[in-house]
């Protein structure tokens, strides 16, 4: 009876904390730890318990990418952060393109579309959103850029050459040719700022002698929900921490086969008393291809699962803002949403 009770508790623990990958489907997907579901478990929201169990670990921080772990929150909130990172953190991007002269092969609207997608290095927190219906734009919500370039023939090129780099000047239009044109008092507001595209070597168009492009661009602040060009991340994703358990000891040939079934580094083979025994070394590296289930002998000896509240986030920024700033901004935006509804609740009287 005690063993049975312990086994039952292990079973419910598994249901509460692990998402199990079976051969033909995934089990225990939904969060079930709400008050009243499990007798004997304290599931009501307890802020202190949450704060004790919660932790954040920064795994790797590179120039444009950040990998960090969040342990102890639920899928709903982790997903909310991911959705906000993709679609609701504002950035500046080219919205209106005033074409004064475009004699290139690239059509006006295609050129405008390409210009809109170029990430602009401008901190969006310094700017406001443009008011609805405002066509002109003021200093506090618009950045103006100019692209003026004309292609001409190189008189000193060799007679027989066919290399366009030699024959023509300015035949490739790069993003470095975009120059900032300060509006109004922007030179006073931003004395040290240098607004330009994040990358200088984005090819916008190709020209031939006699063709020119002369456009003026207005950048405004927007969010990814409106148009994907405003999304500040190259991508933001998360995965759950894998949890691989060997239900029985696996030896010799089976151990070798097991090692091949998982990503390199996950299973290591140790030599214990002359026999090769498999051991789970680092489950985190696994990408869960579920190759184990294709081998009849191995599939019942391993349990593949994921830890339900351990999220491995990976955020790559396009360069406008560093990824740690992006995550902080996303959390602040979720707080702002809650605050908005709290304010409405307090101001509107409920009947």
């Amino acid at each position, binding site marked *: 009876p005690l063993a049975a009770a312990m086994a039952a508790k292990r079973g419910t623990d598994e249901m509460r904390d692990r998402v199990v990958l079976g051969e033909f489907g995934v089990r225990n997907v939904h969060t079930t730890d709400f008050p009243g579901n499990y007798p004997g478990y304290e599931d009501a929201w307890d802020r202190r318990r*949450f704060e004790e169990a919660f932790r954040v670990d920064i795994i790797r*921080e590179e120039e444009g990418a950040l990998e960090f772990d*969040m342990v102890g929150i*639920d899928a709903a909130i982790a*997903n*909310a952060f991911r959705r906000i990172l993709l679609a609701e953190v504002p950035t500046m991007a080219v919205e209106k393109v005033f074409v004064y002269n475009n004699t290139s092969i690239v059509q006006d609207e295609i050129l405008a579309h390409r210009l809109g997608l170029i990430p602009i290095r401008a901190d969006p927190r310094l700017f406001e959103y443009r008011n609805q219906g405002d066509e002109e734009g003021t200093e506090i919500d618009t950045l103006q850029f100019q692209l003026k370039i004309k292609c001409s023939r190189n008189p000193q090129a060799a007679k027989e050459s066919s290399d366009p780099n030699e024959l023509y000047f300015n035949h490739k239009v790069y993003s470095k040719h975009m120059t900032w044109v300060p509006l109004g008092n922007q030179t006073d507001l931003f004395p040290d700022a240098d607004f330009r595209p994040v990358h200088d070597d984005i090819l916008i168009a190709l020209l031939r002698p006699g063709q020119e492009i002369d456009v003026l661009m207005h950048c405004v602040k927007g969010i990814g929900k409106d148009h994907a060009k405003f999304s500040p991340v190259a991508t933001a994703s998360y995965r759950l921490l894998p949890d691989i358990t060997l239900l029985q000891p696996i030896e010799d040939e089976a151990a070798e086969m097991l090692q091949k079934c998982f990503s390199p580094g996950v299973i290591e083979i140790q030599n214990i008393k002359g026999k090769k025994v498999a051991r789970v070394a680092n489950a985190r590296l696994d990408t869960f291809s579920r190759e184990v289930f294709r081998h009849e002998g191995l599939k019942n000896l391993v349990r593949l699962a994921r830890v339900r509240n351990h999220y491995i986030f990976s955020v790559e920024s396009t360069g406008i803002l560093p990824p740690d700033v992006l*995550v902080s901004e996303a959390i602040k935006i979720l707080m702002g*949403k809650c605050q908005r509804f*709290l304010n409405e609740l307090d101001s509107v009287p409920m009947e």
Partner: protein
Amino acid sequence: VQADGTDGNCVTFVLHDEDHTLGNSLRYMVMKNPDVEFCGYCITHPSESKINFRIQTRGGLPAVEPFRKGLNDLMGVCQHVLNTFEVRLLPEELSGL
């Protein structure tokens, strides 16, 4: 925000300009409240950006209370996540991760 319901115990809030981002996380926080008998949200039509958020309480508790508590709890969670995250960023820069 609009609310309509039968007797104050079951209320359906209509939240405009919201989607799964706030809907699912708020639903989770409200479900963690032991006084709530039922909590759910749905998006009435994908072309309209509004959600119907329904709360039913047991006992005579007005449904606005768990809604308010859920919002406050979610704010608390975000604040704590932000603090923990920013604290973790500082020593890394100092010690060169």
